[in-house]
């Protein structure tokens, strides 16, 4: 649908170059107060007001990053190129990241920051209403059948001994072929699923802090124009101060409230690999190796390790302790779920 004019009126010429007044006249009856064009215009204006407001409500962070004028321009062009294809307006922003990545002119000088913010705000939308599944318990973990690579938690507990999960073998990069001790998890075969609501984001800017600050500074109902102006200046200032910094973020839920949780790079990698269906061993091995494909890490890492070599100076024992500690946190947050 053709966007409105700068004064929020329906355009006189349609996308096919024809006069919209003429087209409207062919289809719509005038009445004693309105021409066919004016009657069509009521719908045209309502359409744009509705979807522009919807996108603005969903992306307050991007609005702050770009400023009102640029955000409005971006919104109009995005929604023209990517009209809604969903029965729900919740999905209006689902294609914004890909669209913006190909059109840097809409975020001049701030593309990466804008893209990070879009990723975060879309992740927040998805995390808000994605499914919750019954989390795995510690008992589920310790009774996992190491012989079942695909469905360890639905297999009968054939093991009578139990011990704390052992991550030591998996935390050693050369241990892919090792066998877990009897009574512990076999990381070579164990695959874990994450809660559907978890979104993992590698970010170039600490946009999580920025978004929280923006939301905190946005009163539900702006009391006056002066107040609104002050809020705008604060937001602009916060954006201007923001320096690049690698952030590995999990967007998740606790009691149906969305939270942002920063992760260590290795911690992030393990979760990301598990989400991609890798075994626990593969995930942990990947976490302690130099990533080869991540532009994010390549651009920022000062490490000189050869690909495939461990990148950390921490001992195997220390890494195993890290992994165990992370697993404890993830389990307490209920992040792992049963196989379907």
């Amino acid at each position, binding site marked *: 649908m053709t966007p409105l004019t700068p004064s929020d009126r329906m355009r006189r010429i349609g996308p096919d170059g024809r006069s919209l007044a003429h087209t409207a006249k062919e*289809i*719509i*009856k005038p009445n004693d107060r309105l021409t*066919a064009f004016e009657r*069509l215009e009521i719908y045209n204006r309502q359409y744009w007001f509705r979807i522009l407001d919807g996108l603005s409500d969903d992306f307050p962070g991007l609005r702050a990053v770009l400023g009102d004028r640029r955000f409005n321009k971006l919104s109009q062009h995005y929604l023209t190129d990517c*009209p*809604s294809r969903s*029965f729900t307006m*919740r999905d209006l922003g689902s294609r914004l990241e890909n669209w913006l990545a190909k059109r840097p002119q809409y975020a001049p000088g701030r593309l990466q920051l804008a893209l990070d913010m879009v990723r975060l705000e879309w992740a927040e939308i998805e995390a808000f*209403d994605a499914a919750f599944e019954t989390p795995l318990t510690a008992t589920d973990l310790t009774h996992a059948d190491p012989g079942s690579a695909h469905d360890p938690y639905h297999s009968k507990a054939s093991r009578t001994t139990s011990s704390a999960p052992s991550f030591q073998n998996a935390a050693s990069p050369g241990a892919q072929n090792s066998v877990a001790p009897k009574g512990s998890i076999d990381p070579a075969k164990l695959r874990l699923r994450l809660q559907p609501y978890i979104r993992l984001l590698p970010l170039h800017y600490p946009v999580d802090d920025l978004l929280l600050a923006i939301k905190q500074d946005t009163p539900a109902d702006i009391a006056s124009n002066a107040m609104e102006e002050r809020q705008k200046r604060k937001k602009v200032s916060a954006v201007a101060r923001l320096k690049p910094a690698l952030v590995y973020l999990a967007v998740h839920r606790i009691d149906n409230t969305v939270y942002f949780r920063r992760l260590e790079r290795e911690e992030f990698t393990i979760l990301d690999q598990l989400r991609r269906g890798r075994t626990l061993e593969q995930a942990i091995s990947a976490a302690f190796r130099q990533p080869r494909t991540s532009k994010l890490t390549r651009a920022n890492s000062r490490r000189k390790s050869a690909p495939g070599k461990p990148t950390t100076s921490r001992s195997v024992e220390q890494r195993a302790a890290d992994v165990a500690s992370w697993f404890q946190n993830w389990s307490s947050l209920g992040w792992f779920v049963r196989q379907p």
Partner: protein
Amino acid sequence: MPANRFNNFTTYGVGIGLRIPHYDHILRRKPTCDWFEIISENFMIDGGRPLQILDQILERYKVVQHGVSMYFGSADKLNRDHLRRLKTLVKRTKTPWLSDHLCWGSVDGRYTHDLLPMPYTFEAARLTAQKIKEVRDFLEVPIVVENVSSYAEYHVSEMTEWEFLNEVVERADCGILLDVNNIYVSSQNHSFDPAMYLNSIPAGRVAQIHIAGHSKYRKYILDTHDHPVIDPVWKLYDRAIQRTGHTATLLEWDDHIPSFDEVHHEALKANKYLASASLAAAV
């Protein structure tokens, strides 16, 4: 017609739309309210707070589902994902009937998120009725269609809006959600007599009635659901109730939403008319 096959033989009284600003009040104070109407699309999701709230509401209150995007009148085929999600929600709420609008709003899979008026043609009535039947067969719940407010009329129309509504509901054998505010708004925008509309409605098919406020502009009226119900709309409601008998009634208030008590108080004004209808029926 208080209870009929189109509202699953229920006898609901006066309800209001369930809206986010009222969640806290409802869950904390547990006010008396006959029933709530939910916008189905807000709960056709996989998890999270909206469904948690809905489950809490369902523990205590009767809930009826009202949709805004089925688009019975669109030429597009029915969206199967939409239907599957809707059916999941129907099982959750156990809604006795399910309503959506007699309108179109999508083209080639692109959604306007608006309730666009139909061309009142026999062909459109046939296609629309067919889709209503498909939805009813899939969801296994009575379907009722709501007349929309409109701001435009088409040259191709072959009948009046009320004739079109009758044609569709007869062909689909479905119920009507009669929105008396929408009748009023359209009557003002298109210069017809709203009483003529009301008098032509097959009263036995009315499963539910909507009332609402609107905004008056210089050359037209917009259905904004952001004001109290005006007297002329109450008069239409009175006439509707005289024809249909005691019918489930719901006040819609979607913008500039006041407190729960204020919205509920406005809705309960309907009881005056419902009581006189019941009295007339008894006599």
